[in-house]
């Protein structure tokens, strides 16, 4: 997995996204630190000029380093990076070239993971350090005193690596780039999204939320949702266990990803899914989820309860269910392989 050729190959096919990640972090850490300091100075100047109270916010300072727009952009960019490393190979003949090389598939997968992880970790370290130095040497550096390195540095970094590992794992199941991206987003929010749709179903039928275990259900669902990790870092610092969950998650995803990549059925490259046996599961899953979403949306259009709202729920449910069935059937039988000479 430390083979020079694989590093060259991985960089070659993903370099655009590598430098996009570099720029995202450049803007979000050092530039953001500079503009936040400038904004705070300007706010103080204005508050003196117009005689009003202004207290710089520690939360504002912490958000330079974690959460918010950075998390959102990193989720999108790491997923695209993962899809350029695996998915795009399956759309083209590059996969043939990669698999014909004298390397174990395990090493090919681990080289991709290590490449992406090192890109994320090294750029993050570099820009974080620059941003941290800029802000801590400003007049507002004291604002960072209430935050530790776990919530400012380690937790966001691990959460980005977790999302990347997750998207790379999805790449071992998906048959091509677009399905890898789409499935990464769907399964990245799946536990929370599905829980919301199920509660929506019960609400529409006159049910109400009963928290038998004092809200542990919500906590559990959030912890199972990969995309929740890049946005919440205070809990991580306070309780510690989300940090361990992220590390376990990354390890499980590497292990499962390696195992599945090893068994890649190249003959299904370009199809929505690489594992044909999953087609019925996905067909049923897609239809149920979109039907629930349809019911959730149409019933949400009416604020009053009763049979009319229930009727609307089922109209939405059946309409979305029908169309998602027709689209999913086509989706699962498509093949997006580019075969140029």
């Amino acid at each position: 997995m430390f083979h020079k050729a694989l590093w060259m190959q991985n960089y070659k096919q993903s370099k655009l996204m590598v430098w996009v990640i570099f720029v995202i972090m450049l803007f979000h850490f050092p530039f953001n630190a500079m503009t936040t300091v400038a904004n705070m100075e300007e706010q103080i100047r204005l508050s003196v000029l117009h005689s009003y109270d202004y207290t710089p916010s520690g939360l504002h300072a912490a958000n330079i380093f974690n959460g918010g727009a950075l998390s959102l952009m990193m989720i999108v960019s790491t997923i695209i990076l993962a899809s350029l490393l695996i998915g795009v190979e399956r759309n083209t003949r590059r996969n043939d070239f990669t698999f014909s090389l004298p390397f174990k598939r395990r090493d090919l997968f681990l080289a991709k993971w290590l490449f992406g992880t090192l890109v994320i970790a090294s750029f993050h370290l570099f820009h974080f350090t620059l941003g941290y130095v800029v802000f801590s040497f400003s007049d507002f550096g004291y604002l960072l005193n209430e935050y530790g390195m776990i919530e400012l540095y380690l937790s966001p970094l691990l959460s980005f690596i977790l999302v990347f590992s997750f998207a790379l794992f999805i790449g071992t199941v998906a048959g091509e780039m677009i399905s890898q991206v789409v499935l990464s987003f769907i399964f990245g929010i799946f536990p929370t999204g599905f829980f919301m749709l199920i509660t929506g179903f019960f609400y529409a039928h006159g049910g109400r939320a009963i928290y038998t275990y004092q809200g542990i259900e919500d906590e559990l669902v959030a912890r199972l949702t990969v995309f929740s990790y890049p946005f919440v870092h205070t809990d991580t610092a306070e309780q510690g266990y989300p940090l361990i969950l992220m590390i376990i998650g990354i390890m499980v995803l590497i292990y499962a990803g390696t195992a599945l990549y090893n068994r890649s059925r190249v003959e299904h490259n370009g199809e929505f899914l690489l594992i044909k046996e999953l087609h019925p599961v996905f067909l049923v899953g897609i239809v149920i989820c979109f039907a629930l979403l349809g019911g959730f949306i149409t019933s949400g259009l009416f604020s009053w309860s009763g049979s009319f709202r229930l009727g609307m729920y089922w109209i939405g449910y059946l309409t979305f269910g029908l169309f998602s069935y027709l689209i999913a059937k086509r989706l699962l039988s498509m093949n997006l392989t580019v075969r140029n000479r």
Partner: protein
Amino acid sequence: MIVEQITKSINGKTVLDNISFEVKPGSIVGIIGRNGAGKTTLLRILTGIMDPTAGDVQIKGKSIFKSPEVKQDVIFVPDSSEAMKNYSTRELVRLYKSVYPRFDEVYFHELMERFNLSEAKKIKNYSKGMKALFSLVTAFATRAEYIILDEPTDGLDVIVKRRILRTLVEEVAGNNVSVLISSHRLDELEYMANDVLIIKEGLQDSYYDLDTLKSQYKKVQVVFKGYLPEDIKPHVSIHSQTGRVYTLIVDRGNEEADKRIRGAEPLLYEELAMNLEDIFVTKLGGDEFVS
């Protein structure tokens, strides 16, 4: 290279069934079969791109699937250079040098010069013929013992094609390289190949050296007083017919066929030279063969 009982099923359909053969050092093996017979699938299995459902491919006693490092001796040249299109020639040389320990850069430049190939900033800037030539040049420069080619001359002009074929034969003769070629160009294979593997609907029809294969059949031109007698038809393959002039392919082992032809007292009986195309037509599909 030993190919042992390769079977491949895709979507529950067996596309290759029990293919076995051995590639001897310094030989050229032609793989022929009709469109969709499973030739490309076989080549992809031989290079470890695709896993077989059953069977194994061994090089120097080691399975390429369990010990892929033995593939340092195998280079696959697909029918498209699309995977390489964004690389520059220099980048590709660097990449190949790090993958194939015996990559010969001096020989690479010598071949580039011989074929008048200039360095390119991107392989996709080369013309179709130049791309095919470049793929072969890099393959030769790896000094791999086995070169696997999928339709290497498809779409190339005659001059480029000749140069490629000549270089291939020189490589095999001079460097003891073994070449496996899947091609529809039977005339080219006949010019180069020592051995021929015929695949018919995923099954191994035969694997012989070309001369043995040709000696199994004879091509005869016959003219009868009337049309071809019905009792002969089940024993021969009709290669072509012009009026009452028939060209027949006859299995040399089928004495009954010869007896019946001569028994019908033909006005003309003349044996013609067999070529690979005749064998292809006979074995794989009669008049409606695809070439």
